[in-house]
């Protein structure tokens, strides 16, 4: 069996450590971020603080790596093509193969998972051909088993994360 390597975490913050303002912001603005010329000022008005306070809070959330970004989450396969890929990699080569996978800008999420298929990543490109080309390159370069698992039907897409889970 493959062993799970626990990554040393230095940035980990529990939800309970969020400030009241951060919690209110994250509850309200994972959706429906203002599409107005001064969105942070509008959020500040809504939450009863200054714009500077909001920008400082966002900077802090970013530095603590809690906030990935303020931006879009795309519907899969609308602006381009994407797929989920799994590879079965010998444990001692996992880091090396993960680095090879990460050398492609088309890779967004890339995780180790505890399974014989132990490397899982999402490929997103402007078209399906580029996806097939990358998978073929990875097959050729590594010789390991690869599963190509494109989305067939989405029943529930990332709609933001409920802080009470």
């Amino acid at each position, binding site marked *: 069996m493959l062993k799970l390597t626990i990554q040393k975490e230095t940035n980990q913050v529990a939800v309970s450590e969020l400030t009241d303002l951060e919690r209110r912001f994250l509850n309200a603005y994972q959706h429906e971020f203002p599409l107005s*010329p001064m969105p942070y000022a509008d959020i500040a008005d809504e939450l009863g603080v200054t714009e500077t306070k909001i920008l400082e809070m966002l900077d802090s959330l970013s530095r603590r790596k809690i906030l990935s*970004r303020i931006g879009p989450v795309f519907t899969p396969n609308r602006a381009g093509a994407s797929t989920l890929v799994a590879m079965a990699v010998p444990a001692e080569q996992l880091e090396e193969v993960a680095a090879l996978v990460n050398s492609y800008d088309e890779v967004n999420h890339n*995780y*180790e998972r505890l399974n014989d298929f132990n490397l899982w990543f999402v490929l997103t490109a402007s078209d399906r051909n580029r996806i097939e080309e990358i998978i073929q390159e990875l097959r050729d370069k590594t010789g390991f088993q690869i599963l190509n*698992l494109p989305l067939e*039907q989405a*029943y529930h897409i990332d709609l933001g994360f409920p802080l009470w889970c």
Partner: protein
Amino acid sequence: MVLTDTDRKLIVAIQDGLPLSPRPYAEIAEQLSLSEQDVIKRIRQLQSSNIIKRFGAVVRHHELGYTANAMVVWDIPDDQVDAAGKKLGEFDCVTLCYRRPRQLPLWPYNLFTMIHGKSHDSVIDALEKIAAETGLGAFSKEVLFSGRRFRQRGAHYGQR
């Protein structure tokens, strides 16, 4: 909606997030030689045509303390998978629920759910509750907890 070259450039400009400064849309507009109003209008169109699913704060679960992240994969008969997917997608702690093709004989699973929790045990508890409430407990499944995160960011639809 057919994406224009300008829309594609806009997608590339916002895919890693808005500037954290008072006039973020104006800054993007300047990079693309558009007006601020045009940038806002185009983002709104991308949303209303469902190319952008949501627009707002994107958090990292792990740094929020949800350190246990499991991909739970199910082998559900083809004639029941749509109903099962809809049921599973209704649980708050299921953040994604997708149908994907089986790859027999290597991979028999066709329904993929992501469950986040504060610990290994809380994810397992949530999963047991979900399996019991949906009646899907009888089907074969596997739980794949995450280990190292080698990359975690939003999709890139091209480079700047």
